[in-house]
């Protein structure tokens, strides 16, 4: 099997590939990569190096995993999943990602393409005005240290208490939009100052707000789609991709420094400085976990405030309230997080970095409305090619610590993409294809061109064939807001 690595890669199935422990000194478990043969062949060298580095970390259980949208990241690859024993294992900011609780949110509506198309320009202008994006953007929510402390501990619930959303929104978020154990006392003043003005902002890079259409012929599982409120008939849905902004990044940066020193004390060596870690139950490990939960909760709150603004924008344009337009939350799910979850091995600290939780039917962690069908999994593609709504499976719980892909994954650097097309050209091309783009930065827009990403359909097919998620619907973009 010819891949971008000299390591031996063994075929487990058509969509699962294993690097044995003999391939790198220090590996404690094998590494497993998900994807078709063509996806595996195209993966960059960094994935193979990084997933096997992760396999060397203390307390790791079963496998170090990488999803088919995987590519090089900091420490862990993007698409990386690893679970560590609570008592003997570690926690690592490199396994969570800098943008703590970067995640996806999907909102359904009763509107159709026929309703929205005539007002699309007005709608995108209104959304662009109400949801700040790009460099240095600040949100409309006025914050002080005390209120930001409450955001850190309450997450999306704080927003609901302030009137930014509906109580029932909370049921449809991973862990109710609030992770327990958040302690603002473990967060630096630097992080707070960076984050306090950013609530309700998108950021830039690959973050976006997208208006999408669900056609009848792109629904693959009608029963599950109906449970998620997706009925097709050119139905309009709205997808949001963003996270904890500068706040989460500062938390990660602060604790990487703490962990670099702590590793010496605990006698831990890692193969990459960005895998700095500490025993989960150590003082440093628990401090980071408490601070990371603060960042995760601000990310839930960020997406909740954005949801409020989206509903307000739609109400302004269509003259009916968000409730009258049926703008219910489908789900909100993290793809950069570490959580304690129970598996047959016991309690494990599951790190998902560019990977989505994908619990199957029957999971007690799912809200009652989804318990019989499984967890919605929201996967963002490039802004040109569309996205997918999937559902978690029992097989994912068994094989991948309840995890799956999160997006399509880049194949081209930002610098290369910008050399290939200008933002203005891309915006014009997309308009001709019926996708209206509002962007703060034209160079930032060019960096996100569809050709810089893998084909999401192939990535989705591979996780479906591997049995770790099932396709529910494909979502086609008609409007996109970027930073």
């Amino acid at each position, binding site marked *: 099997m010819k891949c971008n690595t000299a390591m031996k890669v063994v075929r487990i199935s058509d969509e699962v590939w294993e690097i044995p422990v003999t391939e790198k000194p220090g590996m404690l478990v094998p590494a497993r990569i998900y994807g078709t043969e063509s996806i595996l062949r195209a993966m*960059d060298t960094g994935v193979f190096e990084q997933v096997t580095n992760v396999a060397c970390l203390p307390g790791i259980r079963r496998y170090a995993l990488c999803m088919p949208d995987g*590519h*090089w*990241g*900091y*420490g862990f690859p*993007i698409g990386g999943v690893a679970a560590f024993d609570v008592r003997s294992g570690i926690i690592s900011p490199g396994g969570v990602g*800098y*943008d703590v609780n970067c995640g996806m949110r999907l909102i359904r509506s009763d509107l159709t393409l026929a309703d929205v198309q005539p007002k699309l320009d007005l709608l995108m202008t209104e959304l662009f005005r109400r949801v700040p994006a*790009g*460099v*240095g*953007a*600040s949100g409309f929510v006025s914050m002080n240290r005390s209120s930001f402390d409450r955001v850190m501990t309450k997450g999306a619930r704080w927003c609901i208490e302030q009137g930014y959303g509906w109580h029932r929104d909370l049921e449809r978020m991973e862990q109710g939009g609030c992770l327990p154990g958040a302690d603002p006392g473990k967060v630096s003043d*630097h992080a707070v*100052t*960076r*984050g306090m*003005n*950013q609530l309700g902002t998108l*950021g*830039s*890079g*690959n973050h976006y707000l997208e208006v999408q259409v669900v056609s009848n012929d792109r629904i693959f599982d009608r029963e599950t789609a109906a449970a998620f409120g997706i009925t097709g008939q050119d139905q309009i849905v709205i997808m949001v991709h963003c996270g904890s*902004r*500068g706040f989460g*990044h*500062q938390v*990660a*940066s602060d604790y*990487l420094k703490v962990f670099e020193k702590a590793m010496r004390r605990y006698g831990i060596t890692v193969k990459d*400085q*960005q895998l700095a870690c500490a025993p989960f139950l150590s003082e440093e490990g628990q401090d980071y976990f408490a601070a990371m939960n603060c960042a995760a909760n601000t990310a839930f709150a960020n997406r909740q405030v954005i949801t409020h603004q989206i509903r307000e924008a739609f109400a302004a344009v269509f003259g009916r309230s968000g409730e009258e337009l049926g703008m219910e939350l489908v789900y909100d799910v993290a793809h950069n997080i570490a959580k304690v979850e129970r598996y047959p091995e016991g309690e494990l600290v599951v790190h998902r970095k560019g990977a989505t939780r994908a619990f199957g039917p029957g999971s007690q962690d799912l809200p009652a409305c989804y318990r019989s069908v499984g967890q919605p999994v929201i996967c963002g593609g490039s802004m040109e090619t569309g996205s997918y709504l999937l559902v978690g499976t029992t097989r994912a719980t068994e094989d991948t610590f309840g995890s799956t892909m999160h997006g399509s994954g*880049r*194949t*081209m*650097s*930002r*610098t*290369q993409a910008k*050399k290939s097309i200008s933002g203005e050209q891309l915006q014009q091309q997309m308009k001709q294809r019926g996708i209206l783009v509002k962007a*703060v*930065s034209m*160079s*930032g827009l060019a*960096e996100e061109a569809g050709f810089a990403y893998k084909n999401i359909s192939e990535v989705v097919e591979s996780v479906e064939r591997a049995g770790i998620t099932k396709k529910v619907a494909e979502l086609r973009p008609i409007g996109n807001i970027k*930073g």
Partner: protein
Amino acid sequence: MPAFFHFLDDVALADLAFDAEGDSVQGVFEAASQAVMEAMADPKTVGATWERRVEHTGADLAELLFDWLSDFVYWKDAAGVVFSRAVIAVTQAGGQWTLAATLIGEPVNQATQVLRNDVKGVTKHLYRLYQDNGRWRARVVLDV
């Protein structure tokens, strides 16, 4: 040869990597600073209505550069500004390096500035500051 930087095509797929170099420590610091400012916005389109004095001291020059470049990211978020210029002086005394600098810029204005990436942080991935054939060189990956 003057100090300069260039963004890299094949490093850090999802983020932004650059190499900076100069004849002196001061030169490589200036080139790296310019790269970070240009990653965020076109400095030529940014005014000079905001400034902040910054000082760092330490024995580890690489850590000093890392902390200094991180200042751009911090003030971008904390004060909502982008940068047109940075005035830098790097000195050494008694085994300690000191950076005394002034960050100059103005509040973000989407109408008048050419804005680029909302840089979230300076990372340690592939991070290096070293001397090679008399030139000071740095490799930096920015998380965007």
